[in-house]
């Protein structure tokens, strides 16, 4: 028989409670071996690569990239005996669940919130915390025999047959397999649980509903439901649900004593429909990776976190503490373009990328060297201006994870080639999502290359703690007065925002004018270099 093992999110630091899934290195169907890196996660402390604890074939990936997963939640299912006969995923996984998860008084403990504490000695909240016995019988304890519960809870189609799409870990199923642990004496983690694997296959009605369940939400957003074994609903509501194609076990019950009402079914149905709409046809990835779709299907609310959150905080801090002034300059960069073309042919530069941005970065470094007062920071606490004797040149980078502004340390010491290498490294690291906090800290001045989006220029907001930021616009061929005649020339626009608390318009203008002078006539660099 195929044996399905779940790997739950570990605590990769001491006492962490959650981590973000950054990149999966494996997909459903991939073979994996013990200790092979399968996923990269980001904790509050660091980026960490997780090695697989099992050898086998990936049966199911339970958490998509970008989601935050609590420690203890399963993230992947691996079939450790893929040559065996097919069987439903959750039978095996559920069995795992069962040995690790004690039967909680589940009326207020979401069952999916963890498959047990593999970690020991730390304060991470795991599901199934045991409580002292209450003498009175719990109203929420199963009132229906186990067998009924299993029959009512459909198992989804096995993941291996649905190939690409992560098989929805149907909440119903999780319940049907974890609930029996109420009656099975729990065993130490790691031992094989008895019997339950044999139960699930028999309970597989041709339910169609799980297909509607959003793959993400089935993992991250399962509402707490009564932990009763069977769904409690009146017969007319059951029929209504069946007619609507709604799986009762997925419905959040609000009726007295945990009964599912007709309204509950309607509310669920309304919510389920737009979820399907939010997903492109034939596309496993939902349109938005996370979020809650409104009941009319016209809005999605996404929690602000991670890079988005940090960007927002930084921009608010900057925009509302530093009074911004922006100056503009339109410049003929034809000679810079010639220089770029020539350097690309140069043997010295064969292994690095020469771009107009590189020359602009160099021009900015030279200009800062002539006006070092701009390379400074306002210290509100001590009421001092901190002048930096080094240039850590920030480059605003748009990455799949959002805006990051890593900087090239001590850029003023770099020659043109070193600078090109620095730019290449920085970009590659940012694209790979590996930019570390150290890479982003202690910047002194920044370039934002809005030109790559075909934009003329913008009024950039300062990176907090810096006094100037240069926006580099798109380079276009334009008619331009050159030596008294109208010629076709390469022209671009530069914009420089400065913190007016410490930089006056005159200084900002002189700096921008110097940058423009080098771009217009690169040989000026020989004079100023």
């Amino acid at each position, binding site marked *: 028989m195929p044996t399905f093992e779940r*790997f*739950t*999110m*570990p*605590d*990769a*630091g*001491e006492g962490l409670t959650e981590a973000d899934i950054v990149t999966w290195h494996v997909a459903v169907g991939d073979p994996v071996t*013990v*200790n092979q890196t399968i996923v990269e996660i980001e904790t509050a*402390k*660091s*980026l*960490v*690569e*997780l*090695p*697989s*604890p099992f050898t086998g074939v990936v049966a199911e990936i339970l958490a998509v990239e970008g989601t935050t997963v609590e420690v203890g939640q399963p993230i992947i299912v691996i079939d450790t005996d893929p040559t065996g006969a097919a069987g439903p995923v959750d039978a095996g996984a559920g069995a795992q669940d069962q040995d690790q998860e*004690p*039967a909680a*008084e589940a009326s207020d403990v979401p069952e999916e919130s963890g498959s047990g504490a*593999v*970690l*020991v*000695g*730390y304060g991470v909240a795991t599901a199934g915390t*045991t*409580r*002292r*016995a*209450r003498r009175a019988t719990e109203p929420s304890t199963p009132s229906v025999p186990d067998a009924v519960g299993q029959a009512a809870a459909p198992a989804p189609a096995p993941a291996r047959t649905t190939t690409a799409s992560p098989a929805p870990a149907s909440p119903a199923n999780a319940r049907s397999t974890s609930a029996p642990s109420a009656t*099975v*004496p*729990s065993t*130490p*983690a*790691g031992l094989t649980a008895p019997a339950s694997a044999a139960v699930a296959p028999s309970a597989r009605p041709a339910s169609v509903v799980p297909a509607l369940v959003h793959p993400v939400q089935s993992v991250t957003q399962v509402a707490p439901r009564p932990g009763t074994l069977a769904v409690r609903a009146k017969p007319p509501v059951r029929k209504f649900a069946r007619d609507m194609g709604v799986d009762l076990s997925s419905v959040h019950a609000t009726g007295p004593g945990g009964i599912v009402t007709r309204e509950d079914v309607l509310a669920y149905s309304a919510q389920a429909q737009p979820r399907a709409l939010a997903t492109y046809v034939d596309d496993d990835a939902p349109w938005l990776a996370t979020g809650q779709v409104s009941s009319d299907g016209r809005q999605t609310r996404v929690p602000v976190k991670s890079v988005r959150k940090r960007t927002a905080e930084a921009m608010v801090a900057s925009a509302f503490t530093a009074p911004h002034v922006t100056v503009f300059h339109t410049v003929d960069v034809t000679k810079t373009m010639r220089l770029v073309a020539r350097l690309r042919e140069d043997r010295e530069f064969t292994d690095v990328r020469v771009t107009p941005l590189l020359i602009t970065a160099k021009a900015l470094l030279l200009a800062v060297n002539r006006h070092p007062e701009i390379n400074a920071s306002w210290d509100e606490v001590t009421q001092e201006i901190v002048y930096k004797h080094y240039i850590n040149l920030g480059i605003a980078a748009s990455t799949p994870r959002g805006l990051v502004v890593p900087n090239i340390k001590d850029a003023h010491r770099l020659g043109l080639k070193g600078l090109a290498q620095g730019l290449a490294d920085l970009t590659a690291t940012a694209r790979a999502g590996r930019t*570390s*906090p*150290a890479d982003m800290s202690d910047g002194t001045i920044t370039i934002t290359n809005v030109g790559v989006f075909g934009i003329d220029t913008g009024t950039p907001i300062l990176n907090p703690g810096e006094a100037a930021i240069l926006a580099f616009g798109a380079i276009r061929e334009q008619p331009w007065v050159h030596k008294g005649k109208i010629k076709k020339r390469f022209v671009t626009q530069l914009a420089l925002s400065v913190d007016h608390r410490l930089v006056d318009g005159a200084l900002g203008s002189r700096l921008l004018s110097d940058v423009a002078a080098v771009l217009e006539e690169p040989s000026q660099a020989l004079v100023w270099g």
Partner: protein
Amino acid sequence: MTDLLHQAHLAHESDAIDDVPLQLLAPDGSRVADERNAPYRARIADLDADALRGLLRDMVLVRAFDTEATSLQRQGELALYAPLLGQEAAQIGSGRALAPQDMAFPSYREHGVAYTRGVDLPQVLQLFRGIDHGGWDSEAHNFHLYTLVIGSHALHATGYAMGVQRDGLVGTGDPARDTAVIAYFGDGATSQGDVSEALGFAAVNNAPVVLFCQNNQWAISVPTSKQTRVPIYRRGAGFGVPSIRVDGNDVLAVYAATQEALERARTGGGPTFIEAVTYRMGAHTTSDDPTRYRTSEEEQHWRDRDPIDRMRAHLVAEGLWDAEHQAALDAEAAALGERVRTYVKGLGRPAASSMFDHVYATDHSLVTRESAWFADYEASFAETQGGHR
């Protein structure tokens, strides 16, 4: 009475040249022979081919264990783990110089030393899984439990050594009786008062103790340059303790220097301070992210000085190592990794009552009472649980 004048003189005179760590193997694996290391060369002269291969085997196995343990932490099987990656030579070289009756006091990264003391490596992980305060019988192995408090065990070791001295187990001339004590700590620990106190006590009492500092360059994120203005080994001179700086990634140099120090201790010559200059190639612990405070160039610099590569290169150059040896060792390392994994996964939970077991050496009425109360309390969960996990 100790000849303090003489010792102080010794330590001072050679300061300048001794800043260069003692080396018997260059990073490329070739033997280093100069006037200064001649006495140490003599100490390894009797290491035959099997002994030399054994040192490489030890280092490779310990690293295999280390890799597996790091993975197990990432898989949620261990709460925490402190990798020794990069420090194999410092630990194996010094550990293999110990005699069976010698006593070792480790900090929490000395998995290599544990191995040389006959501790079955997987047992070490009980501590890191959080199910035991130790994991081995420290008396059976003459290997104390891991000490997590930085530097405090330097004092424990010094006190233990003074006890050995008072038991008359020093300077008897019987190599099977004469006993030395060794304490392992890091560069960061030298900033703790305890280590200075230990040096002071060890010196004035002429205690048979070797204070072995693995300077792995980083005290978590604090570099050695933020700990000391002089090379760490020179601290010893101020206390009147003979000191030596050794290349900690050179297993032969570490072996020779430690053997010399242990011999001095056993024969009544008193304490020695050893600074083994090495590098922590991995994280401080699995909770640490070293990329935040050090450069990849620095890491590469030390990867090029890998202690295992160095010893292997030496054996290959001497014609003592071939593909067959390598294949056998690789298989052995893989098997150890597998065994570690199986062992850790098979560790259950200790009975909660075991926390009362070692509070006192003998029965104690208060503890007995508390133990009984706790058992009763635990039993009250049974109705919802069917027993605790």
